[in-house]
């Protein structure tokens, strides 16, 4: 019995690693044609599903990311917003005059993902801290319980509802306030911010609540004000938990698909202002997975791999960095 139990616990724990590794290998295998074709240049190339004539510098990109390859793609006029109505995902389909091939670059969705996440964090962080401080330290118990419950309900709303609400009610307000398009990086970022707010606030509140009363009391007993106690004692004490809440929210924001798909505009174009529409990695995957094939499909897997590595890197960096600091 003892042995069976031990084995069960062990295999449960191993399963996580197997799944993690399996996902990574699957993504990597499926992305390999695109990796071989574009290499790391994929990350800085803003063109997506674009036909270019085959030239010698293009061929070089297979082996190494050279400066000439980058400048080559920069020369092209970038307007590929009519994605979807063509079916030339495969290399070298049009053979009119010069041989051409379709190239894919991940810069646009990468930029869209990073910036929408950053906007969300910048919006959500101060508000979440404010909510957490209010609930943990300032509000009377009854109000804290009530507001805390409301915030936890906010976390239970499915993301598509945030998307619909954002599109119909929030987007016009954002456009009226900041100008530009209704669907844009900014709108997507702000709604993402609203979505991650309850997580961040609830976890931050919980970790602030772990500060021992006696520690707060000893700060008050030195003549500290409430603000000083929060700033100098509670925040440093619950730092690890607060950072954890930010990282968990970051993870959710990076991978959020449905709400962002409603709000970001879904076009493969680099945004020049934050009120411009663009696309994020999960949205690019969700919108194009059905129709893609060949190198296009492989490029989507490449994007997915980048997203995976990105989330993984953020979380493991934070984990190791703050675990080391905590010790």
């Amino acid at each position: 019995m003892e042995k069976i139990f031990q084995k069960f616990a062990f295999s449960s724990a191993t399963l996580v690693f197997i799944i993690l590794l399996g996902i990574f290998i699957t993504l990597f295998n499926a992305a390999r044609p695109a990796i071989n074709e574009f290499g790391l240049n994929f990350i800085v190339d803003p063109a997506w599903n674009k036909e270019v004539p085959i030239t010698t510098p293009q061929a070089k990109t297979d082996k190494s990311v050279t400066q000439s390859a980058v400048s080559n793609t920069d020369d092209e006029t970038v307007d590929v917003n009519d994605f979807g109505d063509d079916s030339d995902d495969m290399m070298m389909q049009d053979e009119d005059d010069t041989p051409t091939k379709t190239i894919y670059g991940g810069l646009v969705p990468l930029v869209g993902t990073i910036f929408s996440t950053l906007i969300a964090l910048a919006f959500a962080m101060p508000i979440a801290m404010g909510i957490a401080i209010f609930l943990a330290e300032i509000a009377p118990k009854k109000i804290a319980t009530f507001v805390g419950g409301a915030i936890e309900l906010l976390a239970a709303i499915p993301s598509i509802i945030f998307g619909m609400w954002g599109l119909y009610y929030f987007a016009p307000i954002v456009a009226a306030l900041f100008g530009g398009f209704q669907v844009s990086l900014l709108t997507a970022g702000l709604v993402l911010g609203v979505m991650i707010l309850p997580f961040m606030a609830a976890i931050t509140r919980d970790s602030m609540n772990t500060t021992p009363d006696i520690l707060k009391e000893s700060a008050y007993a030195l003549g500290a004000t409430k603000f000083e106690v929060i700033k100098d004692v509670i925040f440093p004490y619950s730092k690890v938990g607060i950072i954890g809440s930010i990282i968990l929210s970051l993870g959710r924001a990076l991978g959020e698909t449905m709400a962002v798909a409603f709000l970001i505009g879904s076009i493969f174009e680099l945004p020049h202002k934050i009120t411009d529409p663009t696309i994020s990695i999960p949205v690019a995957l969700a919108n194009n997975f059905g129709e893609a094939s060949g190198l296009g499909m492989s490029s989507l897997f490449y994007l997915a791999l980048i997203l995976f590595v990105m989330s993984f890197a953020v979380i493991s960096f934070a984990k190791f960095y703050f675990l080391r600091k905590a010790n």
Partner: protein
Amino acid sequence: MPVMNIKKFSFTYPGVSDPSLKNITLPIKKNKITALIGPSGCGKSTLLRSMNRIHDLYPGNKYEGKIDLLDFESGKYKNILDIKKENEFIKLRQQVGMIFQKPTPFPMSIFDNVAYGLKIDGIKNKSELSDRVEAALKGSALWSEVSDRLGKSAMGLSGGQQQRLCIARAVAVKPEVLLFDEPTSALDPISTAAIEELIVELRNDISIAIVTHNMQQASRISDYTAFMYLGDLVEYDKTENIFLNPKEKRTEDYITGRFG
């Protein structure tokens, strides 16, 4: 001469009908150590926590009577139960410091811990800060142990060192009275002895009230002892009288270990 005069003081916790402290009258004499002893639940910690009104962090308490505190600057007594404004609370807590059951170092460096009370009091001058931190650490018999690692986290100190750090932190702001709430209950005998020695030395500058459930401790270090039972002050006298010659039967029973 008492630095603090508790007169007909009653205290009721929120949501409770009966007062936890009933009609307490007790002086805290200047440059003396006053020990509060009694069985668990007798109200000795409640009384101590009234003396810097740390109770008021949690709303709904009811005070009656008076607690007069001698203000060294003006030489006058002031009833601390009248305090309502935050800046008055801050001043009270700078005058009446407190040490808790467990060491409570803040999550910052050793230097910053001791300097904390000074910094929030508005002292910014670096050399003044380091002078007063050094003086406080020397006064708490900790300087020789930590002088080479003032920038390190206070969390790395041992329990006894942390408690002496907390005492240094409280001493740094030069309080008139220091309240000790069972300061050695979480410490080993050697650290306890160091803390007791320190408290006795501090008496020269600061008046001290200490809650302890260790009667030997009370008899070793205190000048006056108050025995409390079920919210009443049963007997207050010089420590030797309480331990050798108690007037009340209940005091004698408690001292001799017949109950408690």
